[in-house]
C-alpha cells in the first residue's frame, strides 16, 4: 500500500488534471444527453494541512467527542473498558467517561446487541462493540429482525439510534473465523445503514454521523487500517451518509473501491498512470445508502468500471455496485463492468494462501489494463 502522503501529492496533481479533462468529457456527450449536469466531485483529500492522526485515533476521537457532547451515548462490548478494546482503539475512554458509560460486557454478542436495541428504543444512543466482524453472525437476529425492523413495524413510532462498530479485513493470519468482511450481509437489509470508512478523516466523520443518526448503523473498520495516518482537522465535522468520495480523478477507467481496497485501488492507479491509463478512484464510504449517482457519472465519463471490495465476490458489494453502474451508465460503457472481491473461499491461515484470497493492486492493474485495451 502506498502511504497517504504519496497519495496526497498524486491526488493534488490529479485535481489540476481534472479541469483539463472536462472538454474531452463534453466532447463525448451528445445533444441528447446534454441536459445532464456535469459531475461535481468533492476534493479528494480533505483538510490536507490538518494534523495527521491514525485511523484508530480518529475513531476514538469521534466516540469521545460524541460522548462528551451527548450523555446518552455509551459504549458496550467485550474488553472495551480496561483493555480499551483488543485493537486498543478505545484506550483511555473508560478513564474519561467511567465504567458506567464504557461497559465491559460478557462474551454475549447477541445479548449486548439486544441490550443496545432496547436502550436505543428507550432514549439512549448505544455504541455496541463487536470485536470481530465474524462475530456479527451472532447478532443477526438483533440487527436484522429487531433493529432494522422496529421503526417500520411500529409505524414510525419507535426509533433505534444505535451504532454497531465492528471490523473487517483479512491478512492478519487470523484464519477463517477472524478475517471475514461481512458488510454485504448488512448492506442487504433495508432499515440498516452501513459505513466502510477508508481514511482517518472519513472514519471520524462517518462515526460521528453514525452516532447522531436516528437509525441503526453498522460501521466496519478494517483491522489493517488502524495504524494508517491521515490528516484530520481538529475542528468539529461530520460526513453525510450516501455520499461517495472521489479519492483520485481520472478519465479512462472508474475504480470503485471500499475500505482498505481504496488503497489497493490508489496503488493500482499509480501503476496504471505509469502505463498511460488514467484511473478514477471512487470510495462509496457507505454501502447503504449507496451513492449511485457518483459512480454512474464517473463511469459515463470513463466508459469503463471496475469494483474492488474485500468481501467475498459472490453476491457481494461488488455485485450491487457493478449492477447499478451497468444500469445507469449502460450506453456509455465500452467494456463490461468487472468485479474484484475476495476469493470465494474461507480465509485460510497459511500466509501464502491467505494472500491469494485478497484483491491486490497487481490484479487490479491487470484487470484495468485489459478493460481499457479492449481485451
Amino acid at each position, binding site marked *: 500500500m502506498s502511504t497517504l502522503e504519496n497519495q496526497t501529492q498524486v491526488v493534488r496533481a490529479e485535481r489540476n488534471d481534472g479541469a483539463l479533462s472536462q472538454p474531452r468529457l463534453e466532447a463525448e456527450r451528445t445533444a441528447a444527453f446534454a441536459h445532464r449536469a456535469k459531475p461535481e466531485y468533492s476534493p479528494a483529500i480533505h483538510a490536507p494541512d490538518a494534523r495527521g492522526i491514525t485511523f484508530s485515533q480518529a475513531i476514538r476521537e469521534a466516540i469521545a467527542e460524541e460522548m462528551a457532547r451527548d450523555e446518552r451515548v455509551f459504549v458496550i462490548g467485550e474488553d472495551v473498558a480496561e483493555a480499551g478494546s483488543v485493537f486498543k482503539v478505545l484506550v483511555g475512554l473508560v478513564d474519561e467517561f467511567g465504567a458506567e458509560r464504557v461497559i465491559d460486557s460478557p462474551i454475549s454478542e447477541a445479548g449486548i446487541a439486544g441490550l443496545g436495541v432496547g436502550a436505543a428504543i428507550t432514549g439512549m444512543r448505544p455504541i455496541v462493540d463487536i470485536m470481530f466482524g465474524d462475530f456479527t453472525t451472532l447478532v443477526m437476529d438483533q440487527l436484522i429482525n429487531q433493529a432494522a425492523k422496529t*421503526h417500520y413495524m411500529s409505524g414510525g413510532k419507535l426509533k433505534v439510534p444505535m451504532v454497531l462498530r465492528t471490523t473487517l479485513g483479512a491478512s492478519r493470519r487470523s484464519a477463517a473465523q477472524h478475517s471475514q468482511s461481512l458488510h454485504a450481509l448488512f448492506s442487504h437489509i433495508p432499515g440498516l445503514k452501513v459505513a466502510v470508512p477508508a481514511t482517518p478523516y472519513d472514519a471520524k466523520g462517518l462515526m460521528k454521523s453514525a452516532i447522531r443518526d436516528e437509525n441503526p448503523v453498522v460501521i466496519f473498520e478494517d483491522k489493517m487500517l488502524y495504524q494508517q495516518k491521515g490528516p484530520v482537522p481538529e475542528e468539529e465535522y461530520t460526513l453525510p451518509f450516501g455520499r461517495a468520495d472521489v479519492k483520485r480523478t481520472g478519465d479512462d477507467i472508474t475504480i470503485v473501491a471500499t475500505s482498505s481496497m481504496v488503497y489497493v485501488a490508489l496503488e493500482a492507479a499509480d501503476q496504471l498512470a505509469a502505463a498511460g491509463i488514467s484511473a478514477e478512484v471512487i470510495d462509496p464510504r457507505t454501502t447503504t445508502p449507496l451513492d449511485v449517482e457518483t459512480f454512474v457519472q464517473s463511469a459515463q465519463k470513463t466508459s469503463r468500471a471496475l469494483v474492488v471490495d474485500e468481501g467475498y465476490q459472490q453476491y457481494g458489494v461488488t455485485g450491487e455496485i457493478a449492477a447499478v453502474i451497468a444500469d445507469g451508465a449502460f450506453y456509455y460503457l465500452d467494456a463490461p463492468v468487472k468485479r474484484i472481491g475476495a476469493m470465494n473461499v474461507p480465509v485460510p491461515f497459511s500466509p501464502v494462501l491467505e494472500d491469494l484470497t485478497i484483491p491486490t493492486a497487481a490484479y487490479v492493474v491487470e484487470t484495468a489494463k485489459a478493460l481499457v485495451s479492449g481485451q
Partner: protein
Amino acid sequence: MSETNAPNFSDDELDTEHWLHIYEQMVKIRTFEEAANELYTSAKMPGIAHLYIGEEAIAVGICEALRQDDYITSTHRGHGHCLAKGAALDRMFAELLGKEAGYCRGKGGSMHIADQETGNLGANAIVGGSAGIATGAALSVKMQGADQVAVCFFGDGALGQGLLYESMNMAQLWKLPVIYVCENNQYGEYTHHSETTAGSLVGRATGFGVHALAIDGQDIRAVHHTARLVVDRARKGGGPAFLVCNTYRFRGHHVGDIDRPYRSREEEAEWARRDPLTLLEDWLVKSKQTEAQVFQRIQRDVQTAVEAAVAFALDAPYPSESEVERHVYA
C-alpha cells in the same frame, strides 16, 4: 404439574373496585380475542392471530402492577399484553386488519403491536427475541437514573433461546430493573414443554442469582400480588426477577389450529375448570364483595365497546400506497 413457590399474600390493601377493574381488563382481553377469532374465520382479517384466551390473568395481573411509563415487551401472542398495558380497542383492531388507523399504521399487524405511549416497546414474532430489548430498556432506565421497570413477556418456548440467558446474566450482573415473565402455557407451538425443556424452569434463573418464582398463572390474585412484590423490588434497585406463570392456552396455537391433535380434550377440560375469569368471579362472590349481575353488566359494556371498535376498524381506510416506503429509516 408445575412447581410453585409463590409467597403468601394478603388482600388487605386492594379494594373491590380494584378487583372489578382487573376483572374488566380480563373480560376486555377475552372479548377482544373472541372478536379477533371471528374476524379471522369470517375472512375479514388478513394473516393470522395467536389468541391469549385462558392466559388473561398473567397480562392483567402483571400490568396492573405497572405504571404507564413502565416498559413491556410482548410476544406473537401479545394482544393481551398490549390491552392490559392500556392499548385502545379500536386502534388494536385497526392494526389487526392492516388499517392506517392501527397502532403501527397497518405495517406491524397482530404480531407487532407497539405503543410507546403506554410503554409497549413492541410485540415480537421472534421467540425470545425481545429478551435483549427489555433488558436494554432496563439498562437505559438505570443509566438515566429513572425508576421505571421493564417487563419481558415470553412463552415457555423461549426457554430454548440463548439470548434469554445472555440477557438475564447481564441483568443480574448490573442489577437491572427487569422482570422476565415466562407464560408457561404448556406448549411451544404444538409440542409440550416437557419434551423440549430439561431441568428446572425457575432453576434457569436462580442459577444466575436472579430472584425466581413459579406461580399459578390462572389465579389473578396470585399473579398480581407477586407482580407487585417483584416490580416494587426492581424499582427500588433490587434487580431482576423471573416469574414462571403456569397457565394454559385455551385455544390452539393460532386461530387456524382448531383440531389440536397434540393434546387431549380431557386435558383441555381440566384446565377449563380453572378459567381465570371464573376463578375471580367465584372469589369475589364468595367473599361477598359483589354479586353476579355486576359481572354481566361488565361483560355487556365490554361487548358493546368491542363491537364499536370492530366496526371502527372495519370502516377504517387502508394505508395509502405511499406508506410502503415510509419509516424504513427514521
